[in-house]
């Protein structure tokens, strides 16, 4: 899964306010940015950059999980314990070749405390129960390659490039329909806890609700005349 995404034109940078990078090192700034991501209609996408050195405080994963717009993270270094819990709340995860991951409540580093920011719940849902149990009980550290195979990340980039790559993917997603991205995220995450039959109802209802959104008309028109959709007008930004 390391091929580039579709080669469609991307917006040159995030200066138009569509992509918001959330700082992790400063708690107050982190919460401010999360609040802005929830309220500022122009923000379509959130990027979280994590290097192993940053300490993640209790409750921060929940703030990321509460965001309704898509979230991308670029990772490097050792992504352990609560930092791992933080990225488990992210939608699209990429890391560089040197990144490793561990969740070690039973070890000395974990202080013998049960993860309380989703580690025992999201990890098995994302990597499968076998690997999650191994990681949680043995504290085994996994490599970027293993994380890719397990579906914990979807792309590995060269050392030092994970931030750039995350920003690139963020601009790509941010150029897509905003409601479409938001509804897709909701359908995937909320549908995961439902029987398939009910989840298909949720998906269909969201798809039909999207009929009322001008973005959908713009996308269909663009497709039919073979041009790139431009969703900037439809969401009131720019």
């Amino acid at each position, binding site marked *: *899964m390391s*091929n580039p*995404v*579709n080669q*469609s034109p991307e917006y040159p940078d995030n200066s138009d306010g569509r992509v918001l990078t959330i700082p992790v090192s400063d708690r107050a700034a982190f919460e401010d940015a999360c609040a802005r991501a929830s309220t500022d209609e122009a923000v379509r996408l959130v990027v979280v950059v994590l290097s192993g050195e940053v300490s993640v405080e209790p409750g921060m994963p929940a703030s990321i999980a509460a965001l309704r717009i*898509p979230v991308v993270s670029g990772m490097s270094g050792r992504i352990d314990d609560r930092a791992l819990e933080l990225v488990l709340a992210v*939608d*699209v*995860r990429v890391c560089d070749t040197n990144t490793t991951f561990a969740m070690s409540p039973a070890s000395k580093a974990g202080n013998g405390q049960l993860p309380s920011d989703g580690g025992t719940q999201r990890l098995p849902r*994302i*990597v*499968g129960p076998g690997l999650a149990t191994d990681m949680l009980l043995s504290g085994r550290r996994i490599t970027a390659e293993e994380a890719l195979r*397990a*579906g*914990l*990340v*979807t792309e590995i980039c060269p050392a030092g490039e994970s931030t750039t790559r995350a920003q690139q993917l963020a601009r*790509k*997603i941010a*150029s*897509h*329909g905003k*409601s*479409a*991205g938001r*509804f*897709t*995220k909701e*359908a*995937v*995450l909320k*549908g*995961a806890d439902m*029987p*398939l*039959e009910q989840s*298909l109802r949720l*998906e*269909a*209802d*969201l*798809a*039909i*609700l*999207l*009929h*009322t*959104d001008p*973005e*959908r*008309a*713009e*996308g*269909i028109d*663009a*497709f*039919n005349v073979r041009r790139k*959709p431009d*969703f900037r007008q*439809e969401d009131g930004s720019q």
Partner: protein
Amino acid sequence: MTEGAFETVTYEKRGRVAHITLNRPEVINAFNVQMRDDLSEVLDAVRWDPDVAAVLLKGSGDRGFCAGADLSEFGSAPSQSAARNARWERDVFGALRDLTVPTLAVLHGHVIGSGVELALLCDIRIAADNAVFSMPETYYGLIAAAGGTQTPPRALKQGRALDMLLTGRRLSAAEAVDAGLIQRVVKPDDLGRESERIASDLAEIDPALAGAIKAALATARDLPLVDGLAHERRLSIMLDRGIAGT
């Protein structure tokens, strides 16, 4: 007998295998309203035909299995409630998913959007090594509406599914098999022969057993383990007594 050519689909029985072919090769078998209606008739015939013991679903032409929904027809529904009614009145996707006989999706070239969704409503997926998979809906301001937000997370793991859906990332056949989107990859020249071999093997399975396996797997997906184990046990006893599939 419903065998024969519809406007957008061909249906042919070979032995006990129903061969269903999406047949709009000029537009890479783009899924339109007519195809929905044609497929709906075919699947209805398959469902009630006791001679059919397996289904093989494929696309005609060299370019691909299915290039997705035909967006030129989008926006034609008179209202949202009419669109919602239409979705469930002719639920062709549900009809495919609910078949009790084993179903095999045979994929090549472009497998995009609805193409991925149709494939994921089948039980097993085999692809030529030239197949390329993508879900570009959000690029066009749309969301998948034939299970594309539900079946990929269940087949692929959640992170990969979200990545495909949100970024529009394309997967090669090799990447798709690693990700769990498909189960087997073969050379394009071998796709026809290999898929027919698999389908005829599937058709050899006792239909009551095949139906019970599919029902049990659906339970494993949807129910708590304790209920799934009880269901499996019930199905097993019913099969032993020859009363399964009733």
